[in-house]
């Protein structure tokens, strides 16, 4: 894991090439965290993957979290790993909620990390975050005709309609 000066160096180098890409750096439970502007996501991930001395070539996990009521509301986490140095770094793409029926959008990193395929579909399925350029962005765990984004914090729990209506139709 990069230490605090190392993380600032990473920030400096990314900022030099892509001004405004890094919004914040920090440490959460001893994990270096780069919070970035989603517009520069692919550029930052590519740099972390390819730049000599970085080479975070393994994407361990991709997941999202809803920070309601904070703003920006969503963050997609990329847990990157360099297996030679045994170093992890977390990239957080911060996303605003556009509100109403519009869904937040982000570039897909499937071409960079093929492992993200299922995981991006899962994030789409549960948070309604659209990954532009994903080869097949459909629901993965929930039924195709499901309405709503259940892992969002404001999704009501309970009151799910019962899908098996045989008894209701015939005897109700």
């Amino acid at each position, binding site marked *: 894991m990069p230490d605090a000066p190392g993380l600032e160096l990473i920030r400096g180098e990314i900022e030099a090439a892509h001004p405004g890409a890094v919004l914040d750096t920090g440490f959460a*439970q001893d994990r270096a965290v780069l919070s970035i502007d989603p517009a520069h996501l692919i550029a930052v991930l590519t740099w972390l993957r390819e730049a000599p001395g970085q080479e975070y070539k393994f994407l361990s996990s991709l997941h999202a979290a809803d920070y309601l009521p904070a703003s920006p509301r969503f963050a997609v986490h990329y847990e990157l790993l360099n297996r030679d140095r045994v170093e992890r770094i977390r990239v957080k793409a911060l996303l605003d909620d556009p509100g109403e029926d519009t869904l937040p959008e982000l570039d897909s990193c499937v071409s960079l990390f093929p492992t993200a395929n299922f995981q991006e579909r899962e994030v789409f399925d549960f948070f309604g975050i659209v990954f532009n350029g994903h080869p097949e962005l459909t629901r993965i765990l929930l039924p195709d005709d499901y309405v709503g984004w259940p892992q969002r914090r404001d999704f009501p729990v309970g009151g799910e309609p019962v899908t098996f209506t045989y008894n209701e139709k015939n005897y109700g």
Partner: protein
Amino acid sequence: MAEPLLSEDRTSEVMTVNMGPHHPATHGVLRLVVDLEGEVVRDLKPVIGYVHTGIEKSCEDKSYWKVIPFVERMDYVSYFFQMEAFCGAVERLIELEIPERAKHLRVIFLELNRIHSHLVWLGTTALDLGAISMLWYCFRDRDRILDLFEMATGQRMHTRYFQVGGVIEDIPRGFEAKLREFIRDMPVRVEQYQALLDRNEVFLSRTKNTGIVSRERLLELGVTGPLLRAAGEPWDLRKAFDYLSYPEFDFKIPVGTVGDNYDRYRVRVAEMVESVRIIEQALDGLPEGPYIADDRKYVLPPRSELSTSMESLIHHFKLVTEGYRVPPSEIYYAIESPRGELGCFVLADGSAKPARVHFRDASFVNLQAFRDMAVDSYIADMICSLGMLDPILGGVDR
């Protein structure tokens, strides 16, 4: 003139066949949409979600200590690993150090669970390949592990044994003797299994040189665990990262060379023997002392104190009713499960319930490699590859 009944095209036609979700060889409720040209798989798509139960969402509505039995039921074959991933993550969030004895006990149960998981895999996969007797032998030994679980925890499966801070109870008297008996027998049993399979013509011809995926492609696809090691990559989180008391133990990481189904089998079988070695060392070096941390803000007080100490009673009441609060923070904690990297992401918002619990399940990610393993092979090899992939659909769908 009438059309000929069998046009030339019919013989090379690609047919789409649906397999599952209730196919016995899919190891759970997995549906495969397979494009077949004769007997050869040309394309394939796994369709999942049939046992999705919304566990991650349910966890948001439970206080931290009540989440433990939920997450156990995700990957229902390696429940101790789910508990360790979650408890370890929460312990790091609240910066609670667990006693040495608890670390050793956790390692013992994790490794027993790894053997258990590999035995279930070996039995069912060999069954898919026609070796029915393997199932009975493997389940005989699996039952001994379940007996051990029952003895120590009161439950055979989904034990809820790990707690934030340590383990819920010390191992009972007689457990050590029974466990030593088991680890004495197990290497012999593994040799017997190998003797049954390693020189079996049918088994060899069905596993050797089938389902090969290169190491580079596996890494791209995020595959971890025995699948990756079978392709020759010695990557094991137990060695790479320092968690529990694994750094104290001497064990090897079995790796394969070719990365075919036979190597996957050899790696897992060798891992069982290594797990036995770890258990033996953990048992020999099992330190005396408390089995759970002594922080009354997070850990239930001993039952005997409740009738004499008012303070203990208050702590007990607070912990059981509200639970403990975790300061706002987030963590991703990964351990090596029998199927690869099992990561647990916990987001705490300062309340007594987690704002988000997410599991990076190894089966879920590994399943993406299945297309690469099966395309352009025979449908029979596809079944073999699926068994060797060892997905647990409870973990895939959560």
